[in-house]
């Protein structure tokens, strides 16, 4: 199972801060598709968000292990 953490406007649109998905491993791009299918309301923002596995930004071709802790990082606005 993969745990997907959501933040800010994405958590608000999804109505949750955490998604648990059945997951046996795959690419970041695969995981993006799974999340978008599960919650269509966040698909647009997801498409322009970064993905972090653990606390490091990951590329779409990177592997996400079956037990990963993942965060979706929508465009940032700190400062």
């Amino acid at each position, binding site marked *: 199972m993969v745990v997907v953490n959501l933040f800010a*406007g994405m958590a608000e649109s999804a109505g949750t801060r955490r998604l648990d998905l059945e997951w046996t491993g795959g690419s970041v791009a695969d995981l993006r598709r799974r999340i978008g299918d599960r919650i269509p309301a966040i698909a647009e923002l997801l498409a322009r*968000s970064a993905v972090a596995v653990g606390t490091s930004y990951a590329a779409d071709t990177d592997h996400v292990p079956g037990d990963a802790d993942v965060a979706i990082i929508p*465009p*940032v606005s*700190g400062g």
Partner: protein
Amino acid sequence: MDARSKGEVSLVDGAIDHAALLASVAAPDAGATVLFLGTTRRHTGDVVTERLEYEAHQPMAVRELARLRNEAVSRFSLAGCGIVHRLGVVGVGETSVAVATAAAHRREAFAAAEWVMEEIKRSVPIWKCDESAVGDRRWVHPEAVFDGGAAP
């Protein structure tokens, strides 16, 4: 990073103690120290802000801030660099972020403070929610595709 360089990096829930931040970057070889404070602004065009609320992916934001700090130290030959970002509600006129840089000369200290702020806005997983006087809430997510700031 130069092990001799100094400075606090943290996320805080209450008011930022910028005197403590300045003290954390003080160094015998610093001839110039710059303190930048970002504060909540009332008007942005026609939008009237009552308060901002900040949220972060905390472990990742601390890690990214520390990376920026270390890169600033080496890039600008700083004697000290500290960054504190506030989370939660920040009212108009209150400070949401403070950056302190100390260098041998002012040029590097000014340039480093500006660079750190640009990088915070580009890559650190912190978000603000703009709350208007009439109670509207809007999370700020800039329109461009976000790729993690193409962090090295």
